[in-house]
Structure formats: C-alpha cells, structure tokens
C-alpha cells in the first residue's frame, strides 16, 4: 500500500492554477526526488501536499485517508515537513528549537517524558549538531541551521519526511552530510523520504525514484536512468548538457556545456 497518494491535484495562488492535474504516489520506505527548472512549481506542489496551500481539485491521501480529514496533531505525529526557511525571530537555543518537534506528542497539561528527551537527543546526534545544542539558533551558519531543521524533523519521529531543497546554498560537505543521513534513515529505519532537489547529481546519487516537473505538470517520472538522460534534460532545461556515468557508482552524472568555446586542458 502506498503511504502517500497524490491524486490529480490542481492548485495555485491567484486565479491561474500553477500545478495542473498532478498525480504521483510514494510507497512506504520509498525515497522520491522531485526536480525541475525554476518556476516549474516544485515548492507550490510541496505546499499543497503538506497542507500549507489549499488544493482546488483532486486529493492527497495519507495511508488511504484524505489529509484534509486528519487532525493537525495526528498528521504531525506521522508527517514531518521541512521547508526551505524556518522563521526564528527569537534566540531559541538549538535544543529548544529541536524540542518543539515534540509538540504533537505531548499533552497540553503534561510535562515532556523520557521518550521526548530521547527522541530529541537522538535526532541531534543523527543530524550531527549535538555539540551545538546550547548555541543560539540565529547564530548558526547556513549549513548548521539546515542540520538543525533536519534534527527537528527527525525529533518528530515521523513515518514520512518531506523536504524542500534541504541542500540549497550549502557547501559539498553539508550537502553530503544531509543526504547521507536521509539515506541512512531511509535504509535502516524505513523512513519514507520525499525531497525537492535543485542539484541533478544529488538526485541521481540518492533518489530511487524521480519526478521531473515542468510548467506545473509532471513531465516524466521513473528511475534515474529514465529521467537523467541527455534528451530529457536538454528538452526540459533548454540547456546543453553531457551525461556520463559516475565512474564508481555507475549512476548518471550531468555536466554543463558552456557556450563559450573551450579547449581541453
């Protein structure tokens, strides 16, 4: 059975629909990447699926139940969502920030229990920010902040984790750290992951299934070799590329071809 079913949804901000009739599903334990050019509607789709944006047509089912019929608390116990940026106007410590993930698990009139502290500590260890737990969240570097977001997502102890470009603007060390820990949880604990990625090579390296979004519609979905080939990429991105195999993993690897004349070194 699929954990998440997106059925023919359309949505948008003003009168026009940005996402048009999009359907896909994610199996339990899957690792799905969503890629596409700027303006393809990746974030809009993400917001519709995570209930931040009203759906005009179609439905999103979680475990077979329409998500608009699931209580906010119930959904938060199962689904963690990490947007690109989380507002932090006040100087929470990293630990306080991660602890907020337990909101849906703690009754209003009771104190946090051992499981809550365990989940938070484990999440900070996994995300590699345990040593930063007393630091001010607003003073972290971009990479550390993204790791803190990730820890908050893990501490929610979800079945499915949805992330909107978790590696944007990060150096390769943080990119690898973030994607590696997602993959590890996916493999070892069966965490279902849906991730929007900008970087095609990251999508190639980590995602089992890929959806290529273009102009608000699904252009193509499938495995990495079906999507990440020269014809498809050049058609959608309108840019000349070379696709080679990664010498170690054999997965497709995409290179840009500059329009400037170049001579091999």
């Amino acid at each position: 059975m699929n954990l998440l079913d997106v059925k023919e949804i359309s949505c948008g901000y003003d009168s026009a629909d940005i996402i048009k009739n999009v359907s896909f599903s994610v199996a339990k334990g899957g690792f799905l990447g969503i890629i596409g050019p700027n303006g393809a509607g990746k974030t809009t789709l993400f917001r519709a699926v995570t209930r931040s944006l009203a759906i005009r047509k179609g439905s999103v089912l979680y475990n077979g139940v329409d998500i608009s019929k699931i209580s906010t608390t119930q959904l938060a116990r199962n689904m963690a969502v990490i947007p690109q940026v989380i507002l932090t106007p006040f100087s929470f410590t990293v630990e306080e920030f991660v602890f907020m993930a337990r909101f849906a698990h703690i009754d209003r009139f009771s104190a946090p229990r051992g499981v809550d502290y365990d989940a938070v500590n484990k999440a900070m260890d996994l995300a590699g920010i345990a040593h930063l737990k007393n630091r001010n969240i607003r003073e972290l570097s971009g990479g550390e902040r993204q790791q803190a977001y990730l820890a908050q997502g893990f501490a929610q102890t979800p079945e499915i984790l949805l992330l909107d470009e978790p590696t944007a603007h990060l150096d390769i060390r943080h990119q690898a750290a973030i994607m590696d820990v997602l993959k590890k949880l996916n493999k070892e604990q069966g965490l279902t992951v849906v991730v929007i990625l900008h970087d095609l090579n990251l999508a190639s390296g980590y995602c089992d299934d890929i959806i290529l979004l273009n102009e608000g519609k699904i252009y193509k979905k499938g495995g990495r070799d079906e999507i990440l080939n020269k014809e498809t990429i050049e058609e959608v991105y309108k840019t000349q590329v070379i696709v080679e195999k990664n010498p170690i993993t054999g997965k497709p690897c995409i290179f840009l071809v500059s329009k400037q004349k170049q001579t091999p070194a």
Partner: protein
Amino acid sequence: MNKKILSFVGLIVFLSAAIIFAVYFPKIDSQASTIIWQLRVPRIFLAFLVGAGLSCCGVVFQAMLRNALAEPYTLGVSSGAALGAALAIMFNLGVFFITTSSFLGSLVTIFVLYAIASRKHFDNNTMILAGVALSLLFSSLVLLVFAVARKEGVHSAVIWLMGDLSSARPEVIKAVAFFILAGIFTLIAFARDLDIICLGDEKAGHLGLNVILTKRILFVVASIITGAAISAAGIIGFVGLIIPHIARFLFGVNHRRLLVTSAILGAAFLIICDTVSRTIILPLELPVGVVTGICGGLFFLGLLVKAKRWSSL
C-alpha cells in the same frame, strides 16, 4: 538546573524587596497601619496585577506577531481599551460595564490590526505603523469623548488616562485580579504553543498546532488581560515592551519560563515605578504612566539605535 532555581529565587527576592520598599516608603509616623492597609497595599496589589498582566500580554503579542516591538501600547490596543472604558465612564456605567467595554475596545483593536497585518504579510514596519495610527486615532476619540462630556469628571478622567493606580476601588481591584490572574494562567498553559507560533504559521501547523484556533484564543485572552488592566489603571505604556526584552535577555526565550519571569519582573517594575511616581514630587503625585512612558520611550529609542535591523530587535 541550579542556575535556573537561583535566578528564580533572585526574581522573588527582587519582587519582595520592591513590595517592602513600596509599603514603607516614604515613612509614616502616625496612623501608619491605616494608610498602609487602606491606601498602599491595595495600590501595590493593583500595580502587581497590571504590571504582570501587561508584561505577559507583551510576550504573547510579540510571539504571535513575531515582532519584538509589539505590546498593548505600541499596537494601539491600550488606546482601544481606553476608548471603551472612557465611553463607559462617561455614561456613568458600573464597574462591570467599564471592564467589559474596555475589553471590547482592546479586542476590536486587535482584530482590526490583525486584519491589516495579515494583508501585508505581518511586515514589521506595517504593523508598528498601523499600531501607532490606531493608537493616535483612539486617543483622539477618547479626547473627543471627554471634550463633549460634562465638565466635572474630566480632570480625574485625564489623570486616569495617563495611567493612575491610586483611584481604583476595592471591587474593581477584585474583578481585575480575577481576569488578569486567570488570563496569565491560561497563557502559561499555552506556553508550548507560543514557542512554535514563533516559527511562523506554516511551520507551526506542520508541528501539529491548530494555528487559527490557537491564535484566536490567545488574542482573546490577551485582550481580556489588557482590557482589565486598562479599565482599572488607565493607559500604562511600554511595560509590555521593556519587561519581555529584559526577561528574554536574562532568562531565555522559552515561553513557559518567559511568561513566569516576565510576570514577576513586570509586577516588580510597576510597583517601583508607582512608588517613584507617588513620591518624587511630594506632596503631589505623578500619574504612573508618565514614569513608565519616560522609561519606555528611552528604552524603545535605545533599541532602535542599537539594533542593526528591525528583524534583529
């Protein structure tokens, strides 16, 4: 853990010192107990309630609007409440109606402000400007009410308007005590909600909060506290701005801790301000709103100068 207990003990000691100072200063020779028990103690109790209530409202407005400059006074909520109370006073209505009307005034202001702010995506500048505009508008309407009203009530009404803890009657203090204390305990029950509301409506929803319902509840509770405080003590500005800032600086931003420490600090601060205002130009008295206004205005300016950006306040 020890550090937390120590700082909490420190706060209680500070509050007790403020109360003792307020009770025994200036020294009285004859009929001491009558003056202390009939004049000073109720007044100190009211200052305690109003200071604690306004500080907690400041904490709540700042979290919900994600704006460190928000508080009942800068948002115009105080002026709205004052308008409600002024209307009730001028029509010679009873205590119950003054409080109710004051509460309605603050609630209406908050919803107008919320409607404006949500259209502008809670932009910091828009909100403070809208608050200032509402504040000026309602203050002018209050003056209008007093201008057309009968003459004899006006002087005391103007004093009340500037913030005055001396004229509240015991039955008013009792009613206000109920609303403010119940309000503060409700807010503390929502402390974790306030923590995650700081991350924005979308993220708070993802973490499991019913954002719209919770915000409505918190706005109503904060409006009740503000309305109650203002109906008894008039407009006392800036307490809700200064105190949460100091409490956050000293004790961190976790809202359970922040609400409790802000309440205690706010109570102590207003008790001290009131003692100053009642003694500094003896035998006359200053309205306490003048003292908090001067402290708060300078503090506000200092924040503006010191902060690099609005968002880092």
